[in-house]
């Protein structure tokens, strides 16, 4: 399958791969997908007192498009408030990476990962 240059760039030089300490109260984690489906994304966000996402990290098991989608969203969420980050749409991700139709689910998964991380943060902080 022919990948776009942006997918290949994110795949070969993934941004923000890694993990934060799980017990850090400012960290929230979203993990979505299933191994049987061929992709699992773990997105972690570090949120400051003003409710702004200061930093983000990911680990992804999946195809090149899944890795690129998660790498891209770690860049996009940084500096955004939780509400702003929640506005990121899978269509924006798919468009930015020029994903082919069979890979749209990767962008949907990346959007789900952001939402899951935000939900995790909110459930921990009772808001």
């Amino acid at each position, binding site marked *: *399958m022919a*990948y776009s240059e942006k997918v290949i760039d994110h*795949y070969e030089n*993934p941004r923000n*791969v890694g*993990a934060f300490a799980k017990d850090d109260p400012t960290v929230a984690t979203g*993990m*979505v*997908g*299933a*191994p*049987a*489906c*061929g*992709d*699992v*994304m*773990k997105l972690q966000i570090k949120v400051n007192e003003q409710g702004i996402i200061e930093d983000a990290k990911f*680990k*992804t*098991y*999946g*195809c*090149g498009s*899944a*890795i690129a989608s998660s790498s891209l969203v770690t860049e996009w969420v940084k500096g955004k408030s939780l509400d702003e980050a929640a506005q990121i749409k899978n269509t924006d991700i798919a468009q930015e990476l020029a994903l082919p139709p*069979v890979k749209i*689910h990767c962008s*949907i*998964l990346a959007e*789900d990962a952001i939402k899951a991380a935000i939900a995790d943060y909110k459930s921990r902080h009772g808001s």
Partner: protein
Amino acid sequence: MKLPIYLDYAATTPVDPRVAEKMMQYLTMDGDFGNPASRSHRFGWQAEEAIEVARSQIAELVNADPREIVYTSGATESNNLAIKGAAQFYHKKGKHLITCKTEHKAVLDTMRALEREGFEVTYLDVESNGLVDLAKLEAAMRPDTTVVSIMMVNNETGVVQDVAAIGELCRAKGIIFHVDAAQAAGKVAIDLQTLKVDLMSFSAHKIYGPKGIGALYVRRKPRIRLEAQTHGGGHERGMRSGTLPTHQIVGMGEAFRIAKVEMAAENERFAKLRQRLWDGIQDIEQVFLNGDATHRVPGITNISFNYVEGESLIMALKDIAVSSGSACTSASLEPSYVLRALGLTDELAHSSIRFSIGRFTTEEQIDHTIKIVHEAIDKLRAMSPLWDMFKDGIDLNTVAWVAH
């Protein structure tokens, strides 16, 4: 070293230069370009002689009579002609057919088509090593079973079925036995004087011949009859009409001739290369060899790399040309049905790679492949949340995944 390294010989092979040289003599005005069916002039006679020489060369590799060889466009057509042709010709005897779940799509989809025509098909499970259990096959046979179709060498795993024993079972019960030998010819010894095989499919492009040409072996004693699937001028004893492509056929003949001469030495060399590859990879944690370790052709090695995903692995292995599952299904996102039939989980089936070595593979290429595989696995596991969980001792089967 020239990159990428070609390690997908099970998908197709380059035409051997000796074969290409032969083929070129049958195309232009200066060559024997005639129609082998033209009986009225020497252009036709010379072309006919060439296709008959090739027919003998093909027959010799598998110890058959040249009159038992029918030219087709490839193994897919041979499988269609064999299975549909026999099922339809003998339909008054019964309408039950047997095959197994790890067959090539050219067999499985042909069976599906026959189901729509009112035939009943049993799709046998295979054991975890990829082999058909003979007792289960025998149990599936019924008085109305007319055709059993089992491949000799599996295209994804390289597992070799016990065609001799299956043939005995079929012959004892008067059932026609078809064997898809697209991956077997020129790789394992085939003796059709001893094997109780009635129909056998061959392809040229898997053994350094051209694409677009194949053959079907149709046994004469006892005689097997087929309903033709392509109608026309009555070529190939009425079983497959259509002008014979002389240059393709000559190429196939030459490829089969070379295979007969070089097969033994080549297999010895492949076995060493395969061992070198496996020795270099098996020290990686959580890698698994798929398919039986001994009943296997040396050319194909199928390995699962746990906790990395197959497609991203293929991307990371961009300097080596390998495949994930078979080329015919790699456009889909489904994990390989062949590996699923061996009992692999979806995850392991998703993360499997088929390395297939061939005539032009070198030790240097294998060593470079080992290096690239190590780098790719290190990189992808560093990025894999599943690898982290495995290292933390979490059983992934106990996790409540959100399927999508």
